[in-house]
């Protein structure tokens, strides 16, 4: 049990962060708080992926040192962190920003129409108007 904690505690941290975001998305009534929860969720996934690129102690960022000397030579793979998760998470950050922008635009339109961001108040207004909610 202790062995497992020592080797997997990074995953558990990110699971905790992810569940905080998940709970905020489900339980909070305010739409902006829901969006903040979604961002926490996505940040947890990004941190999780970045943590898989670590290779023990003594590794540096995946930028090759002395490019002139290494030309055609041997590159020590164990010296650099895995570049692939970094690239994938760069894409994921872009998608995160895109979803955040669209979500904020939708929330802005909701606020313009109902003058509130609380879910239950919006449902009440819609019910008064005889609409489904």
């Amino acid at each position, binding site marked *: 049990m202790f062995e497992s904690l020592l080797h997997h505690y990074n*995953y558990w941290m990110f699971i905790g962060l992810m569940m905080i975001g998940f*709970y905020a998305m489900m339980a909070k009534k305010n739409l902006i708080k829901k969006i903040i929860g979604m961002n926490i969720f996505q940040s947890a996934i990004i941190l999780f992926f970045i*943590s898989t690129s670590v*290779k*023990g102690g003594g590794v540096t960022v995946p930028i090759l040192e002395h490019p002139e000397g290494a030309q055609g030579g041997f590159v020590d793979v164990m010296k650099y962190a895995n*570049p692939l998760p*970094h690239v994938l998470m760069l*894409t994921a950050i872009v998608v995160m920003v895109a979803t955040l922008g669209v979500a904020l635009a939708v929330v802005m339109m909701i606020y313009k129409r109902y003058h509130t961001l609380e879910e239950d108040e919006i449902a009440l207004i819609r019910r008064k108007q005889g609409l489904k909610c």
Partner: protein
Amino acid sequence: MKTLSLISTIIAGAFLIYGSMDMPHWGDPYSPASTHVSPYYLRNSLKDTATPNVVTSVLADYRGYDTLGETTVIFTAGMGCLLLLKKRRKK
């Protein structure tokens, strides 16, 4: 509603922690993520693309189609924001 979401959050977190038991150890240099294709990128990036930054060469060269799709995502999101936020003509 709050207790229901708390219960489902705890159940999902327990499943994820159970699943994390089979993950490779943190910092394992021989984990599947760091052994399959990433050594190829590290060894050949300078030869193939003449870029010391491996992240840049993978992003813009080896996986350029991924970046092309990313720009499509950005374009779609921007168009969505524009269509949502533009002033509507009163009927």
